[in-house]
């Protein structure tokens, strides 16, 4: 049974500040969770199964066999529009860097998963709401081009509020850039799998998120094109609770499967196993200098 708001806030206040680093409250069931228990459980609530948003590097660690060779990290955002709203854009970026310990909203690189060499991109909502600016578009395009050259399969985890407003139309054009890169990559016969995590909306959902051969959604993730608020304002009524959830999209036929976080790795392993010819894997592996030991 959900905890009433008054009790929830009372509980929150009862947590001393020094304990906040140790404990986290589940926003779904209200349970106080010990962070040290939460981490090995891939940030899934032990009581109700609520999926906390996951840090990009935690996700990568939980996914790959061994090493992860990052590429594109040297690409960093500029300030092409000299943007300011409440704060200047460079200040916002600095704040996000501190808060998220990331240099941008996506991490890209090479790894193996169940022995299959893959190109892997993981977005993180903790950096500018996972919005796609030039660097996100550029890192992903670079990843897809490198993967195509090496004939690797590509897996991208999405989490995004859409195109990044602070980079204006240059951000919108990343939809065109990434879509083209995916199209080239796929038309060469390479496997592309997207994993949509909470939330995947706007320009990211309307480009590479839904282009994949296999589209997987993490359980309970919010996925859609228009934001919930925009829709509610347009139709002037409240939307049903399950609207734009992974489960809703599965029912409507938009995605291939809904998978709980604990099963994502095994599921990806099976998809790779079905789609990729193992006999091609060894030469491909050798083609990646980082793996050619």
């Amino acid at each position, binding site marked *: 049974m959900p905890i009433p708001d008054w009790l929830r806030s009372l509980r929150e206040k009862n947590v001393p500040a020094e304990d906040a680093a140790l404990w986290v409250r589940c926003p779904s069931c209200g349970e106080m969770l010990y962070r040290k228990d939460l981490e090995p459980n891939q940030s899934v609530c032990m009581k109700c199964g609520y999926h906390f948003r996951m840090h990009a590097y935690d996700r990568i660690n939980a996914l790959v066999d061994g090493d992860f060779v990052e590429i594109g990290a*040297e*690409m*960093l*955002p*500029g300030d*092409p*529009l000299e*943007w*300011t*709203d*409440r704060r200047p854009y460079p200040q916002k970026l600095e704040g996000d860097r501190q808060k998220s310990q990331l240099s941008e909203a996506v991490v890209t690189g090479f790894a193996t998963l169940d022995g299959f060499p893959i190109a892997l991109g993981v977005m993180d909502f903790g950096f500018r709401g996972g919005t796609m600016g*030039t*660097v996100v*578009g*550029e890192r992903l*395009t*670079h990843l897809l*081009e490198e993967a195509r050259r090496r004939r690797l399969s590509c897996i991208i985890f999405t989490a995004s509020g859409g*195109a990044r*407003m602070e*980079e*204006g*139309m*240059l*951000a*919108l*054009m*990343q*939809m*065109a*850039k990434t*879509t*083209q890169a*995916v*199209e*080239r990559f796929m*038309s060469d016969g390479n496997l592309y799998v997207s994993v949509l995590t909470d939330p995947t909306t*706007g*320009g990211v*959902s*309307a*480009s*590479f*998120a*839904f*282009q994949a051969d296999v589209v997987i959604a993490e359980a309970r993730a919010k996925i*859609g*094109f*228009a934001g919930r608020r*925009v*829709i509610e304002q*347009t*139709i002037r009524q409240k*939307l049903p609770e399950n*609207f*734009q959830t992974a489960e809703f*999209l599965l029912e*409507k*036929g*938009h995605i291939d499967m809904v998978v709980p976080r604990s099963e994502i790795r095994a599921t990806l392993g099976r998809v790779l196993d079905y789609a990729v010819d193992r006999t091609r894997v060894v030469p491909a592996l050798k083609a990646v200098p980082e793996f050619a030991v």
Partner: protein
Amino acid sequence: MNVIVEREKSLHALEERIAALRARDGGESNEEVRQLEASYNDLLREIFGKLTPWERVNMARHPKRPIAGDYLAALDRFDELHGDRHFRDDPALSGGFAKLRGRRVVVLAQQKGRDTKENIRRNFGMVSPEGYRKASRLMELASRFGLPIVSFVDTSGADPGIGSEERAQAEAIARCLTTLAKVRVPTVAAIVGEGGSGGALALALADRVIMAENAVYSVASPEGCAAILWGDAARAPEAAERLKLTSGDLLGFGIVDEVVPEPLGGAQRDAAGFVARVLDAIDAALERLVDRASAELREERYRKYRRIGSWQGSAQAQMASALS
């Protein structure tokens, strides 16, 4: 309230007086008329000579501005093809075979209405998934028969309704982009009014992008942007300033290839002439593209969008060398 329409009210009295004097003198211009016309032109320049981004947003939304229907009517011929073959025909997006300055093409157009009734029928030019799927279908048709694709963009954005979400608006737009990336024929997009975010881009990933001087093309609507940034949609004029959504800005970024100038006071002051100039610009762009081999076209299209953006780091140099 449209700020341009409000401004125009101050011109109406003068326009009427000039017309009345002319009628009285049988079309002759006497000294009085000439003086009035001079002050009228001064006023025009004062009001419209230098428009702010927000004023251009309002120009793009002007109720008398030429809309897609005007462009379609000015083609040599247009045979509309309907439907997405799955769900319904979306009146917010028209498409079909056409002849433009004698060339055989496939045309796609986002359709606003001229009055409330037509606007409701056409959903104010906001395209639903079935409209984008119709567009993808017609793009593939064009590609199979070697017909260049010409699109007219004028939308505040893709339709944000429940039905559109239920029928996968995101996938429908992504499919349009994918299809435009791979078609083997020349593509020209004309941003003639509002270019509202992904819903506009879905038709505008093109070899050549032409933009009307007072059209706008933006990652988000100024109202939506202001609501997100300051929690106050009334600050839209400020947001319009920051978004860099004018034709001049976008030409500078290389997002738009060519700007078609408008008469002082906006395209609606010489609608037929302006529509003809846009069609001429499209014709000229096609002239330069039609003889190119499809592989070359696609390669250049890829590079064009590959270049757009601005960031720091050595990868920019790497990319430059990879593309050379």
